[in-house]
């Protein structure tokens, strides 16, 4: 017995030492390049230590998880949404639900600061904030019959809190869908191979959908196997399309045409029955997503590529070409999903708590899934940083920033201290089966080049173009799923709101209501997408920070709800566990929002950019193409500015409301209302 404890102590000490050495190695290294395995070791050891000690302490002392207490899945078991499920299955479902494109894109963009800031915040943020948020929200919801975040907010913070959570959710979804749609559009623009492959995923999903409903209802494994074979065929067939001059022209579309296509697609997909397109594509994308994450981890361990990005770049001062803003606070806004994501709170309250069989599973499902998600973000960061920094900036910087022709673009980037040659970019584009890789903003193409580099080197040279387009297809397929699913959920929310104005509009199956609500939601994200597409600076530089702020704001709402619950349920002394990340998020979001609203620098402030553009337009300094879109861009910058003002007001109202409620409870002015479901002993064996 004593021997076993000693062995465990030795093992954990070894993990701690290995992790500390790896983090120290990454932080202090100042050479040409550094082996990516250091990042993997640092990450895995950090998550293990965080999981073993911090989450263990939270589970035992803070939440006081009780394995003898029956969970909602057991008490309310209906064989459908409430059902006790083995924890590894719940873990898989929960991870598949939370892992999207965010942790892939955020780190790719944040690499403009160098590899170090991103790596450190992904590790520290996940262990102390993101995993904690997911675990605590899951815990609070599990103790309250699996209630949703909006429901919990109404119980703890009143009706305003609930409305803010609803509004925040709708807002973040609109911005998220716009930014993800922009990523897909930018990846497909003038790339017949990518476009034809992504288009092919639609009929493939329909075939799988018909198989799953009509031929062999519910046989997901068979249908998924068929679908994956077809998808891989589509990636290869895209190469053929690309080499065929006549067919190639059909798929050689510009960003505007693709934006209209994606908007129309989102609308149609949202009103079609789920079995036809949405559900089958989700089955495919989930499998491919998990498969790619697994393969990427193996490939990085086998190949051990060198990270060529410097630890820190000059752009930490806020002059970055990919997005504006200094390291503080914009690193923490940009890296939203891999470190802490408010969106997770929606899954951790709602779907997942209804499946938890034992209360103690909350630790593995909540904390563990987020640690894995953060690891995905670390891999995306590695994939971005194994590229030559010059190549990375050439792919990710918009033509409006570095110039449209290759010679000017490469000269500008070389002058920043990241040497790159036009010949090098041409050779790389040819290798990836693309015409050009300049100004392919949005993060997806540079991630795909990085992944193709890693996969191609680990699993066979010469297939770079296939790997590149596989990676684009992989990102597009789950981004399109988010578009359908998000438009659908947004539609239900809008119908709910419209129903309070005129009851027939609240009927979820009444066609006019379905159409009106779907058009409203598509118009919402479609507007931001369209503006992003016509923006010569790439659009992502505006949309991603807006998305990051909205996401962190939602996390702040979730943590405010948890803090209020802790104070009212006799956990005051542990209120800092959710309270500290809450304070950090409120600080980061407020500083970022304040800078975006008040900055006089047109690259930074929304209102400053609108003024600058209006002045240039009035003085006739803009080229005819720019002058044509300038009025729309001015309106958009002002709109973004006002949206940021609303975000800031919502966050502070929630926080002040939460603090007031907690103070009233602590000072004994208002007794707490116990919102926890009463204890029932479990019957599960």
């Amino acid at each position, binding site marked *: 017995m004593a021997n076993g404890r000693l062995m465990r102590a030795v093992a954990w000490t070894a993990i701690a030492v290995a992790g500390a050495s790896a983090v120290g190695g990454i932080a202090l290294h100042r050479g040409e390049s550094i082996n990516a395995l250091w990042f993997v070791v640092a990450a895995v050891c950090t998550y293990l230590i965080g999981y073993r000690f911090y989450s263990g302490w939270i589970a035992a002392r803070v939440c006081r998880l009780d394995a003898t207490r029956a969970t909602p899945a057991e008490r309310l*078991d209906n*064989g*459908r*949404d409430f*059902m006790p*499920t*083995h924890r*590894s*299955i719940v873990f*898989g*479902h929960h991870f*598949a*639900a*939370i*892992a*999207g*494109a*965010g942790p892939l894109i955020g780190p790719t963009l944040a690499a403009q600061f160098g590899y170090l800031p991103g790596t450190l915040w992904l590790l520290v943020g996940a262990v102390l904030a993101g995993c904690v948020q997911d675990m605590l929200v899951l815990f609070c919801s599990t103790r309250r019959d699996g209630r*949703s975040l909006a429901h919990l907010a109404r119980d703890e913070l009143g009706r305003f809190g609930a409305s803010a959570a609803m509004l925040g*959710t709708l807002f973040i979804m609109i911005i*998220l869908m716009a930014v*993800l749609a922009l990523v897909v559009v930018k990846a497909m623009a003038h790339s017949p191979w990518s476009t034809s492959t992504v288009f092919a995923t639609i009929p493939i999903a329909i075939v799988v959908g018909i198989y*799953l*409903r*009509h031929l062999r*209802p*519910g*046989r*997901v*494994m068979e249908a*998924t196997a068929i679908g994956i074979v077809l998808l891989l065929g589509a990636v290869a067939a895209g190469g053929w399309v690309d080499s065929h001059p006549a067919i190639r022209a059909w798929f050689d579309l510009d960003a505007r045409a693709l934006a209209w296509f994606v908007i129309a697609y989102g609308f149609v997909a949202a009103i079609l029955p*789920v*079995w036809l397109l*949405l*559900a089958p594509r*989700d*089955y495919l994308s*989930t*499998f491919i997503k998990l498969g790619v994450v697994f393969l990427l981890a193996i490939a990085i361990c086998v190949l051990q590529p060198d990270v060529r990005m410097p630890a820190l770049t000059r752009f930490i001062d806020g002059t970055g070409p990919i997005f504006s803003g200094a390291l503080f606070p914009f690193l923490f806004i940009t890296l*939203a*999903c891999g470190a802490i*994501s408010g*969106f*997770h709170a*929606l*899954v951790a309250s*709602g*779907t997942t708590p209804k499946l938890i069989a034992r209360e103690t599973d909350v630790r593995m499902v909540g904390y563990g899934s987020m640690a894995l998600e953060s690891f995905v973000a670390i891999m995306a960061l590695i994939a971005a940083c194994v590229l030559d920094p010059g190549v990375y900036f050439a792919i990710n910087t918009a033509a409006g920033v570095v110039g449209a022709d290759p010679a000017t673009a490469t000269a500008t980037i070389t002058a920043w201290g990241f040497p790159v040659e036009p010949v090098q970019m041409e050779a790389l584009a040819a290798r990836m089966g693309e015409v050009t890789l300049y100004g392919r903003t949005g993060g997806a193409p540079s991630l795909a080049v990085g992944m193709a580099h890693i996969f191609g080197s680990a699993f066979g040279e010469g297939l770079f173009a296939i790997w590149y387009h596989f990676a684009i297809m992989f990102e597009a397929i*789950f981004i399109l*799923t*988010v578009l359908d*699913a*998000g438009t*659908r*959920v947004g539609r*239900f929310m809008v119908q709910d709101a419209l129903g309070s104005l005129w009851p027939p509009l609240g009927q*979820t199956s009444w066609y006019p209501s379905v159409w009106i609500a779907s058009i409203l939601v598509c118009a919402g994200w479609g507007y931001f997408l369209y503006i992003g597409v016509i923006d010569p600076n790439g659009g992502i530089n505006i949309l991603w920070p807006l*998305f990051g702020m909205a*996401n962190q704001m939602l996390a702040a709402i979730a943590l405010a709800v948890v803090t209020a619950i802790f104070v009212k349920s006799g956990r005051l002394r542990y209120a800092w566990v959710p309270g500290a990340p809450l304070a950090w998020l409120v600080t980061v979001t407020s500083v970022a929002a304040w800078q975006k609203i008040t900055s006089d620098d047109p690259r930074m402030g929304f209102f400053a950019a609108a003024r600058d553009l209006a002045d240039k337009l009035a003085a006739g300094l803009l080229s005819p193409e720019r002058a044509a879109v300038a009025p729309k861009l001015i309106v958009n910058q002002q709109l973004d500015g006002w949206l940021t003002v609303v975000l800031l007001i919502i966050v502070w109202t929630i926080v002040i409301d939460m603090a007031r409620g907690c103070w009233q409870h602590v000072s004994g002015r208002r007794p707490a209302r116990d919102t926890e479901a009463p204890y029932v002993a479990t019957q599960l064996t």
Partner: protein
Amino acid sequence: MNALQAAWRLLWAGLRGLSGDDAYDRYLSHLHACHAGTAPLGRRAFYEAELDRRWKQVNRCC
């Protein structure tokens, strides 16, 4: 050989559970255990009802 078979079975059961391939089987066994006497939904009706329920809420993140 037995160990290999057992490992394969575990992997297969895990994949079915993760993908939702076994949802109908679990529904039937639950109905049998807890609500004996209730007429079960058919395979297709169950599949449709499940999809409808699942996609009415946020179940995919960023």
